[in-house]
């Protein structure tokens, strides 16, 4: 990285603030409509950037993207970032957030985790539960 000349300065995308939605557990067909609704509402509500974070038991399995496709295609005007994280890091992540985050609870989420999420209601607002 030595001796280079910076000729173009470029703004960051990921450094901007994003409205976040966390999806915990496996994504099911019945959640697609809920997610579409959220994307539409944010888009028409003037949100410029949306981050969808999937807390998955197996973050290597990309199958959820097949269900996410119609959701992503609803959008035309927002920047959207999709991330995966292991479900076990959810509560640690919850401790770090500053603004309230909407949470959708999907399939195969243990009762203890649902309870822990509900206990963090000052930061995590559960908007949908699908079991």
């Amino acid at each position, binding site marked *: 990285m030595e001796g*280079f000349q910076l*000729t173009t300065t470029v703004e960051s995308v*990921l*450094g901007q603030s994003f409205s976040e939605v966390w999806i915990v557990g496996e994504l099911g067909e019945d959640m697609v409509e809920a997610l579409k609704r959220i994307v539409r509402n944010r888009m028409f509500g003037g949100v410029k*950037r949306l981050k969808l974070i999937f807390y998955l038991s197996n973050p290597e399995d990309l199958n959820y993207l097949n269900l996410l496709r119609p959701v992503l295609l609803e959008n035309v005007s927002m*920047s959207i*970032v*999709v991330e995966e994280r292991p479900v076990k890091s959810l509560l640690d992540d919850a401790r770090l957030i500053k603004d309230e985050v909407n949470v959708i609870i999907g399939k195969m989420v243990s009762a203890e985790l649902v309870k822990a999420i509900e206990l963090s209601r000052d930061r995590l607002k559960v908007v949908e539960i699908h079991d």
Partner: protein
Amino acid sequence: MTNERFEIILTTDRTMMSDHHGKEFIGFMTTGPPIGMPEFLWMWIAAPKMKTDRLGRPWQAPYAMRKLEALLQDHGYNAAIIDPDHLHKHLDHARILMLSHHDYFALCPPSSEWWLVTKQEPVNARSFRRLMEKPEIRRAKKNGLKIIVGGPAGWQWLYRVNLWEKWGVDTVVDGEGERIVLDLVEKVYSGEPLPRYVFVGPNDVPMIEEIPRIKHASVNGLIEIMRGCPRHCKFCSVTLRPLRYIPLDMIEDEILVNVKEGVKGGILHSEDVLLYGARGLRLNPDALIKLHKLARKHLKTIAWAHASLAAIKNAEEEYGLISKLREIICEDGVQDYWGVEVGVETGSVKLAKKIMPAKAAPYPAEKWPDVVEDAFAIMHENNLIPAATLILGLPEEKPDDVLRTAELLDRLKPYRSLIVPMFFVPMGALKDKDWFTTFKVSDEHIEVMRRCLWHSVKWGEEIMNRFYLRGPSKFPVKLMLKLFLRYVRWKVRSYEEKMGWKPLIAEAPVIRS
């Protein structure tokens, strides 16, 4: 001295990393399967190998990749575009592999259409698969290489999630890349996890000052003169992004980069070249004349990427501008024609009003077929050769709309052009691996496709004889293309006889000199 161990490699498959013998239009053959000849021969005609240096850096590379290469180098990264045949020299010590493509899986028209008609996978998708399965990529992936893919066809990965997973693609980017790419690279360098998918919305596209200048030659000297389009057609994503005109000094710099590296011709790239410097849809003849004089000063040959038919008609009728630009482009007899892609899309006024109400502007949408014919006549008279597209199967299309398109094609017979019908394949259909076996083509569609085919074969032969691929070095390719056109003619005629269809050849266009 350049560090020869690149940490970031940008590449793509052979169908993109080629100059198509200096003729962009031949590149269209990469969207089809090999027809009437073995695949290697088809590839040799459509996408010959690119000259490279000792390290495998190609002489010319796709323009969008050149932009990212320049951006990364400007920010101090040891990045380079590498030809796909030379990846083995670098991947063992690279950290990131970046890929770009116009049509990774042949899901865009016209690839999707070739697939539909022939039931065979086009060579672009085959070639990309071969690239991704190269042992050097598989080995590097196992050793921790990060793979980031993007480009105009980034969205296609959402329809091939199995391959996304199988090939270990870390991030898919959909949208203009300048602002996001540095974020992603920084994440890799700092050991942070990458996002799985990023859609770059209109608020995050770069401003002019953020767009870097290319440092090495682009394929066939393609240079961007503007981004965005103000016409707001329903099916188009380009129009959602803001309009940005590239300043003349930046265009000149990039032309000179190409010329210095031996690429003497140039393609002015825009969704509508004639809107360069325009105020809304009001043309700016001064800006266009300056732009073309600048290009003429440095380039041996000039071509346009795209222009709208309405702007062509308006430019000539209001300002005599096509003739003036012709004088500049064809000055001193250095070239006697130039090429452009145009969108006819439909002959139906009803459909035009619904899906592309501003495409005819400044003329009313009701006049669309007349706008098309007038623009074709202007182009014919000025030796501006269009490769035109039509869209079949639009969501609200009725059989009558298709018949109106067939009628318009009959009106276009006397004008030198190639016309390619494209199928609008509903996104939903693409998710199925065998989508092309279930998609239905109507009798009216077949009529339009036959008209396009005979029109293009007839005019294609004329263009080849009078204008295209001159000089002894181009003779073998020219010969192969002529034989190919003959083969198509024979094959289609025998198919028509078998089906008992009235031969359209009898109605083929009159060749006007």
